[in-house]
């Protein structure tokens, strides 16, 4: 496949564009997706290309337009609803959990909700306590949802397309921190598999499990460790719900040690659930306690040095793994 350098932003946009071209039922709605060009310029130009029926600017009313997305999905459309950032998602949480995730069940299987909700997510732009949240774990605990985390450019290009094939609601977390990052992507790369976690780097000494902003940070740390002779297997969870236990357990069965890295608050993060799955089915494979590097238990502070200290950095990963390996 011919590869091309592309920002994460561009990869996301190409995914949306392809989705809009593929299926007339698809439309994008969200705050500032149209005239403004998207809060992070992801949808820039799409209004001009597809018109106001397919690229809908909505008022500030998260519960309202997410709920409208649920309704439109029920009635035969394939809405992509952008909640500008996860920070505002709490306002729509009732619609997501009590309606989107629950209607199929409450109706005894009659009503499925083929809705995709995209949210910018995460820390890293000095946006402070109300604008730097990592709430993937909340959504990942909800039966009825499929929860995806876009940790790489490949997934930025393809996950939306896969999500749109789902008859059930999908939450797609995108990471604003990565928007300007350039990587090689196949420009005609299509939908990706959204049932599996992915081994992003093979290794034999320890398993590092991560997602989202953690992926490139972990790969960076793994490179550094490799130069020190430690081979880290890096797994990108990708699908936060339902979790792909198999891939995790297979890796732990090989390395016998695991570290989970994430930006989300430590208590109740994805790491806790990953620990539990490994304990339940892979306990006797473990040579040492599982460890986690998570977000600090603090609302994210504004100053750069404190913001950086709030979430694991590549050097923290390197240091932790060296200790775990006994160096």
């Amino acid at each position: 496949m011919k590869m091309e350098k592309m920002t994460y932003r561009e990869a996301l946009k190409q995914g949306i564009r392809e989705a809009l071209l593929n299926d007339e039922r698809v439309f994008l709605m969200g705050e500032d997706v149209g005239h403004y060009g998207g809060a992070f310029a992801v949808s820039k130009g799409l209004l001009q290309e597809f018109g106001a029926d397919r690229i809908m600017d909505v008022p500030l009313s998260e519960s309202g337009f997410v709920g409208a997305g649920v309704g439109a999905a029920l009635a035969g459309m394939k809405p992509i609803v952008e909640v500008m950032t996860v920070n505002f998602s709490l306002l729509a949480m009732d619609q997501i959990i009590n309606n989107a995730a629950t209607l199929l069940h409450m109706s005894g299987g009659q009503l499925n909700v083929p809705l995709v909700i995209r949210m910018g997510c995460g820390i890293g732009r000095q946006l402070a306590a109300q604008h730097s949240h990592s709430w993937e774990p909340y959504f990942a605990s909800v039966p009825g949802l499929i929860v995806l985390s876009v940790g790489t450019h490949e997934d930025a290009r393809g996950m939306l397309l896969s999500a749109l094939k789902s008859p059930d609601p999908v939450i797609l977390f995108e990471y604003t921190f990565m928007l300007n990052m350039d990587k090689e992507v196949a420009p005609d790369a299509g939908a990706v598999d959204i049932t599996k976690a992915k081994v992003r780097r093979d290794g034999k000494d320890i398993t590092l499990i991560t997602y989202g902003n953690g992926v490139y940070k972990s790969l960076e740390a793994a490179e550094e460790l490799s130069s020190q002779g430690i081979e880290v297997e890096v797994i990108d969870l990708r699908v936060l719900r339902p979790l792909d236990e198999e891939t995790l357990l297979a890796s732990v069965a090989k390395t016998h040690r695991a570290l989970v890295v994430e930006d989300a608050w430590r208590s109740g993060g994805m790491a806790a659930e990953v620990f539990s799955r490994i304990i339940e089915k892979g306990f006797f494979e473990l040579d040492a306690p599982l460890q986690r590097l998570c977000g600090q238990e603090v609302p994210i502070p504004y100053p750069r040095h404190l913001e950086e200290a709030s979430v694991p950095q590549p050097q923290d990963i390197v240091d932790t793994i060296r200790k775990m390996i006994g160096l």
Partner: protein
Amino acid sequence: MEKRIKERKVLTGEQERHLLYQMKLIRRFEEKSAEQYTKEKIRGFLHLYIGEEAVAVGVTQALSAEDYVLSTYREHGHALARNMDPGSIMAEMYGKQEGCSKGRGGSMHLFDATFNFYGGNAIVAGHLPMAVGMALASKKQQKKNITCCFFGEGAAAEGEFHEAMNLAALWQVPALFICENNLYAMGTALKYTHAMQYIEKKGVGYGIDSSAVDGMDLIAVSKAANDAVKYIKTNNKPYFLVCNTYRFRPHSMFDAELYRDKKEVEEWKKKDPIPRYQQDLINKKRLSKKQIDEMDKHIEAEINKAVTLAEEGTWEPVEDLTKFVYSGQ
């Protein structure tokens, strides 16, 4: 509602009797439900609609089969007015697989896609945004149907009401918002819920035309609903209709009714929409004593059939517990 079309639909005697039949069916169905609740055949929350029948029947008669209908946890009336099978509703309340939601939902979550009946929502005002979205889909698909959304005056205090009304108006979607103002949200009287107690005035803030109607008068509700539907179809805009009504029964089976006077209830019972409409039809010579008896008998038979279906219905096996969480399970 300046531009509202004044033209009236004239009903045949048969149609009129059918509306009476529907109101009575709802009444008896719910009386029976209360009985079955006392026998512990039905559990959970049971919210009766008794007293408010003219609203569901009057509004629903204005709709077509293609229109989408959404309602609250107090939705037996709407489901029956929509011609859903009483048996499938009773079975649902029993929690049986033969129920309209396969028994998963119970009284608060009646769904029947074949009748375009979309629930059965127990989060107050949670269905209003959904209704806007369904209407938006119709507009995008250039369908001719409208979306009708029932909710209480209590719901109108929720932020979702505000957001949904504004979105509907902005997008000019074919949505009919029906506020069933029964003066109480559980035990909280209208005056403790809204600073502006003429709910229809809330339309102003959204540029949505609105009106209020005596919800105890089937003829008035029917006319208002017909007008509203015409308005929506002619103007390609939403409409907001407030039906002022009253529930004769407690909020749910758990309610001790400490918050209102028995006398107030008795006063409202004098406005009972069913005897009122029945008398009206008798006066107009559209209904004979014999027809009433036949109707009542027919209803009794329907109710019995419903109970039998529910009684004889089957329990879903426990092994299927996690079904219906994702499609295709």
